């Protein structure tokens, strides 16, 4: 079992790559679509976990980053002569990083809940601005209607080439996951964790924590922006909903359900939420549950129970199943202490 562990990622990727061929022919397009959304949400959740789970900065305005990427792509692609995709991607990265760094810079002045609230305020302001029916803004933002009917380069059009788009998002997800993994295992990533654990101490060790927080928000924001861009490419529309508190809450939910600070957990969380949503509201569950037991209520209760009894989320539960708790740190400590106490 232990020997097979390094193979696990390969198996997972292989599984996801062959998934589209596993569905019945008449519904495969639909399921491909669902998984495309899952992959995009997974990228988004991943970005949130980098910030909350690893750097310990709880942003209530994460949708701002997602929406920034989405709108950047949408606005560029709606030009009369849309720039090449590479330029769009570059623009999304630049915008994402800039906004992220700007938000990170706020942490110079506020921290803790205050940071959360000010990010909430910023996202909310963006939400209101993009939704506003203002003659100056509307031509750019589309107002309430958003930017519909975006023309995506034919080669990656999800309508015509759904499968191709599936692999594209899968590749993006896997790529960004490994990039994130790399980051948190890098010297920089370790400092992120140090900041989460004890920021004053990290400063005292000689780290300029502001730089790291800037970097963390910029990277997280960039990844979220890329997710937003993918969403726009898939949906061919950008709307102010992308900037809403709901979307931030989604990120939070996916992260918690999956397991904070595990990267893979929030991605699983994204899949869980999307599939649960489909399942709970699908015909099957509706036939099973009494009519008064609304899917939302079931979801709420399941979620509360999860937070209460499985605080480490799905990943925690999985680890528990694999019997990892017996090797918990305290046990390791006690074992380590034993010979010393006798000597």
């Amino acid at each position, binding site marked *: 079992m232990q020997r097979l562990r390094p193979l696990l990622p390969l198996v997972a990727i292989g599984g996801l790559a062959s998934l589209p061929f596993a569905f019945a022919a008449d519904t495969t397009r639909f399921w491909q679509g669902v998984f495309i959304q899952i992959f995009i949400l997974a990228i988004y959740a991943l970005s949130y976990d980098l910030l909350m789970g690893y750097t310990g900065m709880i942003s209530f305005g994460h949708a701002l980053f997602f929406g920034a990427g989405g709108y950047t792509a949408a606005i560029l692609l709606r030009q009369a002569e849309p720039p090449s995709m590479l330029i769009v991607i570059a623009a999304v990265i630049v915008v994402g990083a800039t906004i992220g760094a700007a938000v990170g810079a706020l942490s110079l002045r506020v921290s803790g809940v205050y940071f959360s609230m000010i990010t909430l305020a910023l996202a909310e302001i963006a939400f209101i601005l993009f939704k506003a029916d203002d003659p100056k803004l509307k031509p750019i933002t589309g107002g309430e209607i958003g930017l519909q009917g975006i023309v995506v380069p034919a080669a990656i059009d999800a309508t015509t080439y759904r499968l191709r788009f599936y692999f594209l998002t899968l590749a993006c997800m896997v790529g960004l996951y490994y990039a994130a993994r*790399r980051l948190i295992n890098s*010297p920089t990533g*370790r400092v992120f964790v140090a900041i989460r*654990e004890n920021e004053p*101490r990290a400063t*005292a*060790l000689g780290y*300029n924590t502001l730089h790291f927080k800037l970097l963390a928000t910029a990277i997280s924001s960039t990844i979220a922006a890329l997710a937003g861009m993918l969403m726009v490419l898939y949906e061919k529309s950008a709307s102010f909903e992308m900037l809403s508190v709901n979307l931030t809450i989604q990120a939070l939910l996916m992260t918690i359900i999956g397991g904070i600070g595990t990267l893979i957990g929030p991605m699983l969380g994204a899949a869980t939420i999307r599939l649960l949503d489909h399942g709970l509201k699908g015909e099957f569950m509706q036939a099973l549950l009494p009519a008064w037991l609304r899917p939302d209520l079931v979801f709420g209760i399941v979620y509360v129970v999860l937070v209460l009894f499985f605080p480490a989320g799905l990943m925690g539960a999985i680890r528990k199943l694999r019997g990892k708790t017996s090797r918990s740190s305290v046990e390791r*400590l006690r074992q*380590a202490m034993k010979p010393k106490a006798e000597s």
Partner: protein
Amino acid sequence: MPNVLLKTEHLSRSFGGLQAVRDVSIAVEEGSFHSVIGPNGAGKTTFFNMISGAIKPSSGKVFFAGNEITGLPLHRMIHLGIGRAYQITSLFPSLSVAENVRLAAQARGRDTFKFWQHSDRFERYHERAQAALKLVGLRGVEQVLASALPHGDKRKLELALLLASEPRLLLLDEPTAGMAANQVPELIEIIQQLRQSGQHTIILVEHRMDVVMSISDQITVMHGGSVLAEGTPQAIAADPRVQQAYLGELYDDVLTQPHEVAHDTNS
């Protein structure tokens, strides 16, 4: 002629109406072992905080290796070579012991922003961390989470964090606090070693007189924020003002026989 590594000039700090540190000027020679003692609330920690950049002085200056460092931000201090241990243990609780120390070692290097490389590839930090752990006698618990260590070991880890950044000047604020009696000699051993290696200059704040008296080259006594006396351990021990303000009667014997413990003083 030994050169002065750390110098303060008329360093003062007040909190509201309270003058916590008043006009303190000291000079610490490179490679020496300098202790600061004084009653509780004398301003020792505040003085430390100003040298290490944790708080800014109200007035006065701090010089390190000839350069003025007054008011530099905390994170710059480590890079200059000033490291301090805290009176209240401050660690990264849910990181392993090894990771705690590795972070400290890495802080002084130039590789922190190489975010595309795995941290394990930087062997030198790992080695430095191991060396620091060995020095403080914390081997075999590398994978334990810092929060799970017994209090005494946390103090050791605190010290290891400090050593891993290879500071020229070490500021130790009550390193033995919370340690078991049997560990104190061990710690003193470590501090002695550091001192003998000649690479470090050490400033120590400590209330255990046996330790202070046996190890220091020079002692500064603070009282009410100002310097009450300064000199060699013998001179300090003999100073009646110090006895009255700080030592009391309990340690009469210590002053004459630093390593022995008197048993029946009070009964």
